[in-house]
């Protein structure tokens, strides 16, 4: 066989690979381009226009939506609420998950029962969670205030008190989603080689000692991942706030996603709303890049 036929054959098979490669990618790519890439690009274009749902003023207006947003006290307030929620929710969502997983990892009997009770809330829709907690937070008829008054504490206005409402939402969120982090921790813990523990107990290390000198150090990389994923998830908060307080009282819980939603669909200002979306995207981007850098450094 001459070398020309060989190379021709190789180029034929390369063409074939190109065709089948893009052929396999095509269906995904189609959806990807239409429902992800295009909206991102178009959304950015929208943010440069005065587009509104009423159809008025569709022209380009440059970056004036952005300048307006940066001077918009409501935007800053909602962004601040989102950041506040992210900070005060991430800590318990990671710590409680860790405690739950550590307890189970000791080897409690009836594992499935604990897993079920800690994880089951994660399977609920946000609306179900909101209905449950709105009812329990009810100032007169709610379970929480009833419990408080039984132990002699004053009643709390929960969702109606601007100083408490965000914490009330954090409690509901903790109950709802901690099970997810708990599962990730549990998986990571059960992946720690048993020999580590065997060696430690031969050396006379007790359960506590093992927890602090084996389990926790081994979990450090998992913790970094969980914290970053939790931050990203918390920054997107919308559902439970919208459903439980509608952002109130007095805007004290309104997150930035709700502000985007309201300027777009209640205020009909799609262009302005798109601009705020992009400011929010910038924030997410910063955290994501942090995540990328940290995980990269770890695997390198």
């Amino acid at each position, binding site marked *: 066989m001459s070398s020309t036929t060989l190379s021709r054959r190789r180029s034929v098979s390369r063409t074939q690979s190109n065709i089948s490669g893009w052929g*396999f990618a095509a269906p995904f790519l189609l959806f990807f381009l239409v429902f992800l890439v295009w909206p*991102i690009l178009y959304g950015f274009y929208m943010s440069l226009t005065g587009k509104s749902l009423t159809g008025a003023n569709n022209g380009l207006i440059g970056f004036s939506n952005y300048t307006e947003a940066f001077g918009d006290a409501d935007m800053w307030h909602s962004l601040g609420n989102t950041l506040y929620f992210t900070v005060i929710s991430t800590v318990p969502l990671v710590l409680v998950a860790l405690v*739950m997983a550590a307890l189970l990892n*000791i080897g409690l009997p009836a594992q499935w029962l604990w897993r079920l009770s*800690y994880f089951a809330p994660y399977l*609920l829709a946000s609306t179900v969670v909101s209905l449950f907690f709105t009812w329990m937070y009810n100032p007169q008829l709610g379970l929480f205030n009833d419990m408080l008054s039984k132990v002699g504490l004053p009643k709390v206005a929960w969702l109606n008190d601007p100083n408490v409402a965000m914490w009330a939402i954090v409690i509901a969120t903790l109950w709802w989603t901690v099970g997810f982090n708990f599962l990730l921790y549990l998986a990571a813990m059960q992946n720690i080689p048993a020999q580590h523990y065997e060696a430690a*107990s031969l050396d006379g290390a007790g*359960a506590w000692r093992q927890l602090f000198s084996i389990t926790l150090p081994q979990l450090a990389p998992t913790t970094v991942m969980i914290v970053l994923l939790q931050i990203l998830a918390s920054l997107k908060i*919308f559902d439970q706030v919208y*459903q439980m307080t509608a952002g109130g009282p007095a805007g004290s819980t309104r997150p930035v996603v709700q502000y985007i939603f309201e300027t777009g669909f209640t205020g009909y200002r799609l262009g302005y709303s798109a601009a705020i979306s992009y400011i929010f995207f910038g924030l997410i981007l910063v955290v994501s890049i942090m995540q990328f850098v940290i995980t990269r450094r770890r695997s390198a």
Partner: protein
Amino acid sequence: MATPTLTRTAAGSAQSLGNHKLRPVRKKPTIGRIAAVALAAVIAVLWLIPFAWATVTAFKSETDAAASKISWVPPSGFTFDAFAKVFQDGNIPLWTWNSLYTSAAITAITLVISALVAYALSRIDFKGKRVLMTVIIASIIVPPPVLIIPLFYQMLSLNLIDTSWAIILPQVIHPAMVFVLKRFFDQIPRELEEAAVMDGASRLRIFTQIILPLSRPILAAVAIFVFIGAWNNFLWPFIATNDSNLLTLPVGLQTIKSAYGIQYAQNMASALLAALPLIVVFLFFQRQIIKGIATTGLAGT
């Protein structure tokens, strides 16, 4: 033959979750262990209270539910009235059906398109593969709330608002799941395919008859993850539909607060009925679901 090993390596940590035989070394009933059980039990009780209180409320009469003296056992006894009323309205079954078929469609489309592209990225050398891979990975960071405004506008101009397609189509892109699938395919030994290539089998045949059967555990994991996400998604279906016949469970439930007002027992009955399907599924497939979440969880969201 290769299947069990494959599963274990790819599902990695997740696999060990299903393993009930825990380390035998530390099982003495010490004070520490008793304290651990006690603390675990306290947390479990706290975590079950919202379910319990919702259930008790749902089985009360509206009068008892709204009584200012709070009771776990209502004075006039438990009743099915609230559930009966909710069923009479007929909304919950309709919403459940809507959630079921939209979530099933989202899961099916996601699985097909993601597995295909993941196979190409894992096995086929084609021009532009690296760029495609980078773009898909980079897109993981796009937060869905950023897309709602342009997507809504897009659906409006495609005349899809108030159709099921508006709910389904934008939810089928899961770049992280593509990545999860690719990583699994990477671990399937190539020798399994080489014989088929020798016999002149096409790529598509190799994919459907060799790769997919070996990938059942990861396909199940991805399906579970996508399905739960779609079933519980609120923001996008809330925006994409106003038609009361198309509402999904989470969106429909949001409307009952205004409809029933202070009908606490009916609110809780509706919420419990909405929660029931996934909880029941979980009771039956607990292991698979936990494994699935643990496998896909760190890559996803």
